[in-house]
């Protein structure tokens, strides 16, 4: 007996919908095993991790807060990955966006009026886009591998933030703590729906829906998908791979930068030496779990946000290390990638007797 893959004649639509669900189910199963190994009741663990955060108002609100940046960054990354541009530096674009967005309230704290916040968001998007354009330009100009350069810039961005909050941007009245001044009310993202969520959540959903329409219904969306699947065919249609690389990186950077600014303006209200629990990397998982589709990414963002809240939950309730959250996130991406195989291939059992010559020519 041997197991082998047989290529399907066309993509399986059922599997395209089912594969993320199978992946989540397999992840939950592995999580249960992980809980058992570490000496905890797997059922209670799973409940605390995946279900309990959804049953209480505060944890539901916290889940929305975490899902928002993940969805926004994931949407941008989807544009990159669909067009075959491997931007894995969203974490750095998030940070630099936050720095650009915070420049206004930190350097000009007395500039308080109705345009403060829109300007901050604009600067944040520009900052993230500029940071993302570095690897894009190096790729288009010098053919440099964008995976490595975009990732290296994550470390540089983190050190830049560290330098600013410990040096020039440190709060003058902050007793030497490494943090910036607290933003004024005019620079703070308001809460909506009676304080249930920050304004960042509805902004993010609107952007995701717009992006879904652009990808599905417009020429630009078509260009992105064609260039990803067959750059040669795309070039016959007159699409430029280089221009698309710059475009997709700029979009991803802008969305990550916007997410960064909304995080410091809404959730944190100041700059700290560390402003992200790895959103930029988790968003990669979100993008793939959401099958690179903005609507799927909205759902995937909530699933991954749950893992942050659930991780804290099992830590406080059962004493499990909250590192279990990142283990579960990593496993989830593995299972998503493994299950995606089912979309293109069927799994078949073959007995050894079959003459290899005519075993399968599908």
């Amino acid at each position, binding site marked *: 007996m041997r197991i082998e893959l047989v290529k399907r004649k066309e993509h399986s639509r059922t599997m395209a919908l089912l594969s993320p669900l199978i992946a989540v189910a397999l992840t939950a199963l592995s999580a249960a095993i992980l809980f058992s190994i570490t000496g905890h009741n797997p059922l209670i663990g799973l409940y605390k991790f995946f279900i309990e955060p959804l049953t209480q108002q505060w944890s539901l609100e916290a889940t929305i807060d975490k899902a928002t940046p993940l969805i926004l960054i994931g949407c941008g990354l989807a544009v990159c990955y669909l067009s075959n541009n491997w931007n894995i530096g969203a974490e750095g674009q998030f940070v630099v966006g936050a720095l650009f967005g915070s420049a206004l309230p930190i350097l000009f704290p007395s500039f308080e009026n109705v345009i403060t916040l829109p300007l901050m968001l604009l600067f944040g998007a520009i900052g993230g886009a500029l940071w993302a354009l570095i690897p894009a330009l*190096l790729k288009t100009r010098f*053919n440099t591998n964008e*995976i*490595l350069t975009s*990732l290296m*810039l994550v470390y540089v961005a983190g050190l830049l933030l560290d330098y600013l909050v410990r040096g020039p941007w440190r709060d003058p009245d902050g007793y030497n703590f490494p943090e910036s001044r607290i933003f004024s009310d005019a620079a703070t993202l308001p809460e909506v729906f009676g304080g249930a969520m920050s304004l960042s959540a509805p902004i993010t959903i609107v952007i995701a829906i717009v992006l879904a329409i652009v990808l599905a219904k417009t020429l630009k969306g078509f260009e992105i998908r064609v260039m990803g699947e067959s750059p040669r065919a795309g070039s016959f249609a007159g699409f430029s791979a280089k221009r698309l690389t710059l475009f997709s990186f700029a979009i991803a950077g802008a969305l990550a930068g916007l997410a960064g600014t909304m995080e410091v303006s809404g959730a944190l209200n100041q700059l700290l030496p560390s402003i992200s629990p790895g959103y930029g990397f988790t968003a990669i998982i979100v993008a793939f779990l959401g099958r690179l589709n903005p609507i799927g990414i909205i759902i995937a963002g909530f699933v991954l946000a749950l893992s942050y809240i659930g991780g804290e939950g099992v830590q406080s309730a059962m004493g499990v290390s909250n590192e279990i959250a*990142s283990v579960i996130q990593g496993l989830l991406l*593995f299972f998503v990638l493994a299950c995606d*195989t089912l979309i293109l291939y069927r799994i078949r059992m073959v007995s050894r007797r079959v003459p290899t010559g005519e075993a399968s020519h599908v």
Partner: protein
Amino acid sequence: MFEAVLLTVITAATPLLIAAVGELVVERSGVLNLGVEGMMIMGAVIGFAVANQTGSGSLGVVAAVVAGMAMSALFAFLVLFLVANQVATGLALTILGIGLSGMIGEAFIGVPGLDLPQLYIPVLSEIPFIGPVFFQQDALVYLSFALVAAVAYCLFRTRLGLVLRAVGDNHGSAHALGYSVLKIRFMAILFGGACAGLAGAYLSLAYTPQWVENMTAGRGWIALALVVFSSWLPLRVVVGAYLFGAVSVLNLHAQALEFDIPSQLLSSLPYLATIGVLVLISANRRLTLVNTPACLGKPFVPDR
């Protein structure tokens, strides 16, 4: 002073060298494993944990190698058998490795580590200056050079190396000639995992004998860049690794000299240097095109 600097350069370069030479073999077989960082950090934590529990540094090193191989086997299963996207799977390996290592390592934070013994080569180690630098290192430093020599010899002077390169350059032809592309790639991936695990063990047992969360700090990624820098030639990896080793210890020594430069700028130098070097190398099309394995990153599905 110069001697001390040189010694720190060697310890900083060794893990880069080991990890990069392993990845070079993987890429020569046509597979891009971006999970070096994840395998390396697993090697670091498992190596530390086993050395700590058993009191034996060598056992720690062996365990780290096994951990790296186990991680790479997971990668191999996905990209070879399930034909998953290599870039995304490599990323998944890194994310998983960082998470797992954090979970395993939690119990070992702040626990004093075990330092690998220095090997004194008799007579030679007593030569002034040259002795301490070249003949009083721990075993892994010597091993790293042996590894490079062995890989260089194997790749270009043996039949095995020829087959491996054939698989990486044209998997269709290699398959048609009757070589098992997937089996050879699987072996190469395991070798890369073993090297990454070993490099991780060097970090937690020799470089800084302790466990710190995320202690690889991007070294796995720098090792990946070194493979590009070397244009897939083992001997050039040595040059690259020592160059980067030197850049990464600048921070340490500049602080001692009290230069008035923000430490964050110095810390970011290895990352900026990586970008700079990648640009220089990749701008030179002639250099890269000659040695880049033609099937790098392309999946192979045997047509049965």
